[in-house]
C-alpha cells in the first residue's frame, strides 16, 4: 500500500517575494525531494518533474480544470463559465470557438503587419542609448496591435494589462495584498457582465464569439465567458516571454552571433527561451479520483500543483537544464502546457516572438542588457523592467 504519510514536505514558501524572484533553486530542491511533495501554505500536493507534470496534464479525466486552476476559492469559483476552468464537452465546445482565429493559418494574415510594426520600433531604438526593453520593445506589439485584434472598446482595451496582472497574481494563494487583486478581478467580472456585444469591434476575435450564440454552439454565458480567453492571457504572457528572450540573447553574445549568421536557428531560439524561463510558473488541478504518481497516491479531492517552470528545468529530461542554448532540441518543453488545455495562444506567442527576433537580426548588430528588475507576480515569472541597448 502506498504510504501517504511519507510524502515529503517542502517547507520553504514558494510564494514569498524572494522565492518568486529566484525560484529555480527551490524547484531543483523539490525535484530532488521526490516525485510528489507537499507544501504547507497553500496546503497542496505538487509535481515538479518533467514526466510527472506532462502525464498529469494529459490526464483530464482524473485531474479537473473545472475545479479551478488556482490556489484560492475566489479564483477557483469565478461564478460563470470560462475556458481554462472548464472540462469535457463544455471545454471542447468553447475551445474550438476560441482557438479558431489563433490557429496558424488564420494568424498568417497578420504576420507582415506585425513584422513591419516591430521592425519600425526596433529601428527607432538602434543607437538611441539605454532604454527599458520591457516598456519599449516587449510591450509594443501586445498593446499596439494584439489588443486591437481582441476588440474590446477603448476603455476596456486600456485596462487589459491591469486585469491580466491581477488575474495571474490571484492565481496564487491568498496573501497580503490579495484583496486588491480580487477587487481588480471583480472589476473585470463586472465589466464583462455588462459588456454590450455591439460595443466590441466588428470582426474582432471577441466579437466573433457572438455568432456562436445564434448558431447554437455556445450559450450566452459561455460565449461571454470565452471573451476572457482573449483578454486575460494574451498580453502579459508574451510581454514577459519577450523579455526573457531579449535577456537570454544579450547575455549570450556567442549565441546571438550564431543566430545572426544562421537565421534558421530562430524558431529554436524562441522555444529554448520559453523552456529556460517559463512565464507561467504553475497552475493547479483538482483530483476527481485518486491519482497515482510512481508509488504515491494523491487522494481524490486534493489540489495538485503542476510546476511547468520546474518541469522545463528537470535534469532528468534536459541536459544541463539551467543553460540557455538555442541549439538544443527543446520542442518537448511544457511552457505552454500539454493535453486538452494546451495554450490556445501558443502560435500567436511564437509568431510575436519570431517577428521580433527577425527584426532584431535584420537591424541590429549588438544587444546589451543590464540587470533586470524581477516581478513578484504569484503566477507569472518575468521582468518588470530590463535596461537594454541596441547597436
Amino acid at each position, binding site marked *: 500500500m502506498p504510504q501517504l504519510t511519507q510524502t515529503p514536505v517542502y517547507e520553504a514558501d514558494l510564494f514569498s517575494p524572494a522565492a518568486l524572484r529566484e525560484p529555480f533553486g527551490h524547484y531543483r530542491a523539490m525535484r530532488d525531494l521526490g516525485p510528489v511533495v507537499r507544501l504547507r501554505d497553500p496546503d497542496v500536493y505538487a509535481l515538479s518533474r518533467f514526466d510527472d507534470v506532462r502525464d498529469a496534464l494529459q490526464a483530464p479525466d482524473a485531474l479537473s480544470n473545472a475545479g479551478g486552476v488556482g490556489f484560492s476559492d475566489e479564483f477557483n469559483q469565478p461564478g460563470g463559465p470560462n475556458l481554462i476552468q472548464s472540462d469535457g464537452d463544455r471545454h471542447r465546445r468553447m*475551445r*474550438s470557438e476560441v482557438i479558431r482565429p489563433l*490557429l*496558424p*493559418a488564420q494568424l498568417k494574415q497578420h504576420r507582415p503587419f506585425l513584422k513591419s510594426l516591430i521592425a519600425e520600433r526596433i529601428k527607432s531604438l538602434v543607437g538611441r542609448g539605454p532604454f527599458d526593453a520591457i516598456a519599449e520593445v516587449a510591450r509594443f506589439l501586445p498593446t499596439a496591435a494584439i489588443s486591437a485584434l481582441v476588440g474590446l472598446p477603448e476603455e476596456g482595451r486600456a485596462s487589459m494589462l491591469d486585469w491580466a496582472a491581477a488575474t495571474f497574481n490571484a492565481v496564487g494563494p491568498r496573501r497580503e495584498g490579495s484583496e486588491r487583486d480580487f477587487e481588480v478581478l471583480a472589476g473585470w467580472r463586472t465589466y464583462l457582465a455588462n459588456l454590450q456585444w455591439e460595443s466590441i469591434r466588428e470582426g474582432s476575435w471577441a466579437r466573433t464569439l457572438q455568432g456562436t450564440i445564434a448558431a447554437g454552439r455556445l450559450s450566452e454565458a459561455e460565449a461571454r465567458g470565452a471573451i476572457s480567453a482573449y483578454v486575460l492571457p494574451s498580453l502579459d504572457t508574451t510581454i514577459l516571454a519577450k523579455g526573457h528572450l531579449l535577456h537570454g540573447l544579450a547575455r549570450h553574445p556567442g549565441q546571438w552571433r550564431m543566430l545572426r549568421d544562421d537565421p534558421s536557428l530562430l524558431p529554436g531560439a524562441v522555444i529554448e527561451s520559453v523552456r529556460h524561463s517559463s512565464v507561467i510558473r504553475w497552475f493547479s488541478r483538482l483530483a476527481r479520483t485518486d491519482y497515482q504518481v510512481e508509488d504515491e497516491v494523491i487522494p481524490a479531492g486534493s489540489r495538485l500543483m503542476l510546476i511547468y517552470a520546474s518541469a522545463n528545468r528537470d535534469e532528468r529530461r534536459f541536459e544541463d537544464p539551467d543553460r540557455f542554448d538555442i541549439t538544443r532540441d527543446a*520542442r518537448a518543453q511544457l511552457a505552454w502546457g500539454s493535453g486538452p488545455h*494546451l495554450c490556445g495562444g501558443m502560435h500567436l506567442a511564437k509568431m510575436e516572438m519570431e517577428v521580433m527576433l527577425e527584426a532584431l537580426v535584420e537591424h541590429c548588430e549588438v544587444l546589451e542588457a543590464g540587470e533586470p528588475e524581477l516581478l513578484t507576480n504569484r503566477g507569472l515569472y518575468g521582468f518588470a523592467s530590463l535596461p537594454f541597448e541596441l547597436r
Partner: protein
Amino acid sequence: MASLTITSTRGDTRTVEGAAGLSVMEIIRKAGFDDLQALCGGSCACATCHVHVHPDDFARVGPPNEDEDDLLDSSNERTPTSRLSCQIPFGPALDGLRVTVAKEG
C-alpha cells in the same frame, strides 16, 4: 487486432499491432516514436502529430476535417496525403495502414 506500419522522420520503419478505439497518434506514441510530439495530446490544437499517409491507403483514411485542415495548412511539410494522426481513429478497417511521421515545419 489490426496492424499499422510507422516510418519515423529518420527513416526507421516498424509494424505494430494497434488496438481499435485508439487514435493513430496514440498508437505511434505508445510504440515509442518520440519524433511525433503530439503536444496537445490529441485535441486537434497543435499540429505536432502530422503524418503522411501512404498514397495507396489514403482513400481508406479519408480527408482531414475542417479544423484539422486549417492546422495542416500552416505546415510547410503538407502533402496531398497529410493528416493529423490524432484525428484518425484506428480500427480493423485500417488494417495494414502505412504512415510516415512528418518533419516539423
